[in-house]
């Protein structure tokens, strides 16, 4: 595999994590952070400071869309859902990460499942 890895791939890890989650169902910010933490066993963890600037940037790019929804139990929540542009973005992002892990595997024997 000779495909060059983009330098921003580290940043893309956050984008990929969020887009992948939202591809399953619309979620609000706290739930996005909670699910990423739970599903990765705490290896990846979003804080308020790392999550919202990224979410707003993705929203500005048109990859996700936020909408307020009433919450019976407490305060209203802003749910984010994947847009069609976000769905298109998810495909190359996944390919880049596969290439990234393949490159690491070739170099350092770090295989991914």
């Amino acid at each position: 595999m000779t495909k060059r890895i983009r330098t921003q791939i580290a940043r893309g890890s956050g984008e990929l994590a969020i887009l992948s989650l939202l591809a399953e169902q619309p979620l609000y910010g706290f739930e996005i952070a909670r699910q990423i933490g739970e599903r990765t066993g705490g290896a990846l963890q979003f804080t308020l400071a790392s999550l919202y600037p990224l979410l707003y940037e993705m929203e500005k790019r048109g990859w996700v869309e936020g909408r307020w929804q009433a919450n019976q139990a407490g305060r209203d929540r802003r749910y984010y859902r994947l847009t069609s542009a976000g769905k298109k973005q998810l495909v190359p992002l996944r390919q880049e990460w596969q290439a990234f892990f393949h490159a690491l595997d070739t170099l350092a024997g770090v295989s991914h499942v």
Partner: protein
Amino acid sequence: MSDWRELVRERMQTRPVTQPDEVIEELSSHLEESYNDLLERGYAPHAAIERSLQEAGDWNVLLQRICLTKSGRNPMNDRLRRLWVLVAVTWLALSLGIVARQRPGVIGPSLILFYLPWLATLPLVGAAAAYLAQRSNLMHDGSKRLWLSVTVTWLGAIFSLMVLQRIDHPSLTLRRPIPVAFCWPWLATLVLVGAAGGYLARRADAPRKMRLVVAISPALLLGIAMLLFLPWGATLNGYPWWLIFFAIDAENWVVVPGLALLLGALPFLWQRSGNPFALSNGDASHPMPSSPLPE
């Protein structure tokens, strides 16, 4: 639980780029959910607040990142511009005052005319500084308290100099190397000043390093000024470089007073802030279990 919305609003609002209400609503909602989640997991309320707030990290950085994303503007640049205006106006006014005082012939022959511009300048400087600081939103409540601690420390240090002058201690005249002549009433006053600075800075929720800097700031800045300016004069007077420390009286004006200020501040350097909404994480006792995602 306290008003998370108000808490976020206080930290996120800045005049040049006002945050939309929905950003404040969303961030405060996140913090509240985080707080409730931690309570369910058995955290004590105080620890839950502290840990929830840690999620935001540096509020200025967060504000900067969100503003850049939302509006493409960096609010810190606006603040810095206004800060420069503030500094420029202050210095200009002070310089005018000094010129007016030193060149009475320019202002007028009478004593009233001589001192009038100088006296009139001081309230103007204060008013301009306060107005611009308020307009720039440079200070929220925590910062105001911190500025108070700095002001009290400096006023105290100036007052202590007046004590020294009244005593007419030999420290006031330039001496040449050693012996060091300590003026105990002066040093005792400085211990109290350091204690006041340390106490007020702790009340302002400043981290320990900041409390230390506030408490010893008069000696620290005097030391920097002396090191910057006085050695030239000492060198011109023929002092060898290795004696400059004594030639500029650093031991008498910087080291010993600095130690006295530090002595007074010591008890307050180790105390924890009682305010769970502290502006810094200096006293954080519940670090995040793992790092956030890389930038």
